[in-house]
């Protein structure tokens, strides 16, 4: 680990993302206001106005245009940044589905927000999960520091020629977007040494006219299937390069050693809660409290959702008696009526030699806070199940008024 001059500043998650893209020297950003994405575009606009960043800011007429502008800018080889939230993400969905197929190494910030109607500003993960199968690399930072780190790494991994798939940095709306903590900020030189300027292998240039995203429908039966396979290979590569990016990041700055998980009292635990994002804020104090009472509880946080750390997860969770999985979105009509993370974990564990009992908690829906009492309720349920060995209700709603 190299000793670098550390500058610590107080930032919210969105400020941290804006600071990261400033230091990454992005060329183009497009904006259309929707909270909580608005905060980040305003922050980047400030950087440009203050002369700290030389980038083109496009004020789009809607999210669809916003993503189109950035998609086309990215085709010219520009390093771009944009993003949205909830229904704004839905409005921009047509270009959003195309970006991975075009193999553009773009980085998008998704300020997670529940879909309207009914109008709500609270966080849910469903906006992100609309895009889970499209070929995006997805991470869920927990703190402003991690939002900063993951944004830097997102460019590093996506811009690798063997990957060339876009990334979504999920910043939970109303939680991480609006809460400030200290962030260690390396110098621009250090960042650009870690993520060198982008040299897109197939950039658009007037000297060499190319057709991008040509209609392959007619040939589709002959080519599209092969293109999908190529993208699948890129996703396999992404896993390898994610691990490498973390290794290099850790060597440089001494953070983010483990690319996939963060353990909290999980080593000798019997029951663990497993989730992503900021839910651990309310869970950690409860873990400490229960540990004082001698109860072997732990907490594991998943940092990256795509590519999914399948084998690693299997190895990690197999040893526990009971695992509770928190989902911050509902997946209506899914097996057991459980959420997306629940389905993914169950599927991962299918061929594990031994499997823990699994319970799904719908927690924090619509931005409802997962506070210590809610976390306590979940741990008590898990401990009871570990004792009886029976899961009577596989899916439970936490924080629901009854």
């Amino acid at each position, binding site marked *: 680990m190299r000793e670098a001059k550390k500058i610590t500043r107080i930032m919210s998650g969105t400020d941290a993302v804006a600071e990261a893209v400033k230091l990454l020297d992005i060329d183009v950003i497009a904006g259309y206001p929707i909270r909580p994405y608005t905060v980040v575009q305003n922050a980047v606009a400030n950087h440009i106005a203050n002369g700290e960043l030389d980038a083109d800011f496009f004020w789009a007429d809607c999210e669809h245009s916003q993503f189109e502008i950035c998609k086309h800018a990215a085709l010219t080889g520009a390093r771009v940044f944009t993003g949205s939230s909830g229904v704004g993400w839905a409005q921009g969905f047509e270009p959003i589905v195309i970006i991975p197929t075009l193999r553009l190494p773009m980085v998008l910030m998704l300020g997670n927000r529940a879909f309207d109607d009914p109008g709500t500003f609270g966080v849910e993960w469903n906006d992100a999960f609309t895009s889970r199968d499209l070929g995006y690399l997805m991470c869920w930072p927990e703190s402003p520091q991690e939002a900063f780190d993951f944004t830097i790494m997102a460019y590093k991994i996506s811009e690798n020629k063997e990957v060339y798939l876009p990334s979504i940095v999920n910043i939970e709306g109303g939680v991480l977007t609006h809460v400030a903590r200290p962030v260690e900020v390396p110098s621009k030189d250090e960042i650009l040494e870690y993520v060198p300027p982008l040299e897109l292998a*197939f950039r658009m240039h007037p000297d060499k*006219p190319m*057709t991008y995203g040509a209609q*392959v429908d*007619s040939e589709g039966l002959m080519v599209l299937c*092969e293109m999908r396979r*190529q993208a699948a290979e890129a996703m396999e590569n992404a896993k390898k390069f994610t691990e490498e990016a973390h290794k290099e990041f850790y060597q440089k700055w001494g953070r983010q050693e483990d690319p996939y998980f963060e353990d909290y009292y999980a080593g000798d635990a019997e029951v663990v809660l497993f989730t992503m994002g900021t839910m651990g804020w309310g869970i950690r104090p409860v873990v400490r409290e229960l540990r004082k009472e001698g109860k072997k509880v732990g907490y594991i946080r998943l940092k990256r959702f795509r590519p999914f750390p399948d084998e690693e997860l299997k190895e990690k969770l197999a040893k526990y008696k009971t695992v509770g999985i928190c989902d911050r979105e509902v997946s209506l009509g899914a097996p057991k009526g459980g959420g997306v993370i629940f389905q993914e974990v169950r599927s991962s564990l299918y061929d594990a030699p031994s499997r823990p009992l699994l319970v799904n908690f719908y927690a924090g829906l619509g931005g409802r806070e997962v506070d210590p009492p809610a976390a306590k309720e979940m741990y008590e349920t898990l401990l009871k199940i570990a004792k009886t060995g029976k899961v009577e209700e596989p899916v439970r709603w936490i924080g629901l008024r009854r």
Partner: protein
Amino acid sequence: MAVVEVNFRGVAQTKVASNIVNMVYQANVEAGRTGMTFLRWNDSPQRVGIPTKIYVVTGESLEGIEGTSIYEPETKNVSVALDDTMLFGMEAGGNLGIESLADGIKEKGLLVIVTEHDEETIKKYLPEAENRYEYVLVRGKAPFAGLWRPLESSEMTHIKVLGAIARYYPEVFTYEEAKAVIPQESMEAFEDGYKNSIHGEMTETGIAREKPKWPSWKELPKYANVIPAVEISGKNPHYSKGTTKTDIPVINKEKCTKCALCWIICPEGCLVRTPDGYYDVEKKYCSGCGMCESICPPKAIKMINLIDYKEEKLEGGQR
């Protein structure tokens, strides 16, 4: 097993073509056999004027085709063309290049052509195939009874085609078998096709067209969705639209005032300015839409049927 292929133009003839294959199928079912029909979806049957195909396979069993949704027969017994301008080939959406109506036709197979032109003219344009085949000319206009017009407005061409098949290729269905499914009011057209179609033989043979080979996912360029484009103001040879047209504009330079409206309106950009200020048509890229004809103020542009054009029957137009 007998394979009948109907070549038609998207949207405008989809209904007529489907009706032909459905009735062939129906007659075979009534006669105690079985079958299946396949619309070649990979072409663009849902796009106006683009040539495409629909197949019907009939026989004693479905062996060999059961479980198939994309059917591309190696050989065919009967090929029907609902429009004689498809004799110049058909470039469907499938990037299979320009296909010939007689590709894969069996020895002594039958090519049925709906045409108003005389036999001597059509014979000049009959495509060469690997095998010798017979042809039948069904007398009538190309039936354009598609999405918005009832089938009857096609002057019962579809029924005439069935009559011609029953007479000259009874392996598909016999006269009696066909009669069982022809509605009473259509019998006149059926008899007309049966009796009055012109029959002959094409004896010159050519070589089989090579089918394109496609690369594996590892052979494909790494970012496969990026392909070389044409230069600015150039034209893409892969999208020539050459076989989409039935008619082509002919410009009478004596009437032309050089107003350039045709040049402006042409959606394909296929009108080319000549050094003396007139306009020529780059035929390969013309889709035959006729917008130049409709906008021309002095009526110097006239759309002419492709075969008439080749025969130089220009009806007042001038090349």
